[in-house]
């Protein structure tokens, strides 16, 4: 499962960009226990991890087996088309953890990630904790928190039939659900709807986030991308 590894940005453009803009609003911290090695009381450990995360105002949290703060519902009624409950629900994520999974918290700023990592270190949960972010920022965070990195994994981007991939803006949006549940066509449709003023950027990203099954879709970054795209192309 490499669901947060290959989040597309200009740095991985197929025609290399001269000065790619740093991504400063996409930091994921996730925790994972290992079966039979450190998974005793894992539900409590995962809940503790996410509760600590909530103190630092994440844009999303998720349980890889259940979803994130925004989820589809099976019991909608037609009033939803006019008045829909759009509020993210972090408590359902925490309450829904049942066993082996990966739990993640997504932040839109470095300081929040750093503060959270420091708290997780102090909590000493004993399960594996990873940062998925620009490597230099993750390294800086480790240094600030007094942590020596254990292992690293680099994304080298995409190869092969990249001509089958959508445009860069759409790819930035759709690759934020690494499991591929946010389709490129849907991301394009949402951008079009924002351009046509049929939905706000906030509403558009909520629709997309509901498809992300592990809750690592960054609604803050997505909103920024849509706003930029709509402004640039108008």
């Amino acid at each position, binding site marked *: 499962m*490499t669901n*947060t*590894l290959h989040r*597309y*940005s200009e740095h*991985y453009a197929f025609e290399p960009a001269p000065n790619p803009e740093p991504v400063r609003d996409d930091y994921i911290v996730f925790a*994972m226990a*290992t*079966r*039979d*090695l450190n998974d005793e009381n894992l539900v409590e450990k995962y809940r503790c991890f996410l509760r600590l995360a909530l103190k630092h105002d994440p844009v999303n949290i998720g349980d890889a*087996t259940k979803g994130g703060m925004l989820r*589809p*519902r099976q019991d*909608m009624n*037609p009033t*939803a*088309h006019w008045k829909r409950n759009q509020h993210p629900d972090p408590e359902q994520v925490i309450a829904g953890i049942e066993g*082996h999974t*990966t739990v993640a918290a997504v932040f839109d700023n470095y300081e929040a990630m750093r503060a959270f*990592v420091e708290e*997780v270190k102090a909590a000493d949960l004993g*399960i*594996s904790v*990873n*940062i*998925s972010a*620009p*490597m230099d920022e*993750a*390294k800086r965070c*480790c240094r600030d928190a007094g*942590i*020596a*990195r*254990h*292992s*690293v*994994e*680099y*994304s*080298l*981007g*995409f*190869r*092969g*039939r990249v001509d*089958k*991939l*959508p445009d860069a803006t759409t790819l930035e949006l*759709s690759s934020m659900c*690494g499991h*591929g549940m946010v*389709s490129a*066509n*849907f991301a394009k449709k949402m951008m079009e*709807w924002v351009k046509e003023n049929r939905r706000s950027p906030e509403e558009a990203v909520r629709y997309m986030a*509901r*498809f992300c099954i*592990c809750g690592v879709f960054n609604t803050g970054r997505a909103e920024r991308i849509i706003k930029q795209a709509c402004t640039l192309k108008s």
Partner: protein
Amino acid sequence: MKIDPHKCVACGNCVPVCPMGAIHIDPNIGRATVNQDECVECFACYRGMSKEHLNPAMVRTIRGVAKFFRFRFDPEPDICPTDAIVPQELTWPRIVRRAFSDPQVPHESTGIHGRGTAEVKTNDVTDRVKEGEAGFVVEFGRPGVGARFRDIERVTAALAEIGVQFEQNNPVTSLMRDSSRGLIREDILNEKILSAIVEIKARLEQVPAVLQRIRELAREVETVISIGVSTRCDMEGNDSLREILEREGYATYRGKTNLGLGRVTQRGLGIGN
């Protein structure tokens, strides 16, 4: 996945949400239809869309009236109003599509939800990738293109020829008929999946050669390949992999960092041991 023509009202909401673009409105029947050859059984439509369970006849009537009067109605784009999307019972070999496409289905070979192992995410506990070693995750089909096992085998067979070692606790490896030659079961070669991850290990000094071979092979397949490379850091938290990758001209902007906060607290076999 199937769409029940008796329930479907052809609202078209499910068409763009399919990651494979396998759903369209069939003009002959006026209902949404799934292209079974392209569908990878990811369940994104079934699970990702909210549902209203409305009466199809009533919805068709209202839509018909609105259409007649040219009323424009902007319904929520992620709702199936009549719960028309229906999972079908999957049998071999089609069942592998779901195993490699639906993130909520655990692979029996690993017990992990997803399409690979824990890579280096739990390396602080499993010690899967050791100092001086490089772990490769070669992912086929993502994002949003999909891959057939025939293409995957083309790459795994070629990689086997240069002597790489396939991760044993990996779903693709578990479907190989001969892992020493990278050959995959023949009965699944035409199955299309959303994404599959091949994991291999090599020495750090082999990294340039392995990557070069993967780049060459990527030109021969009909899908996209995303590549991740990992290693264990030294006691100070430094790694020598980045220098190797940058020397070879690869972008290393983003990745994962295992903080080393995990520890073994139980005696057991564990994944990867």
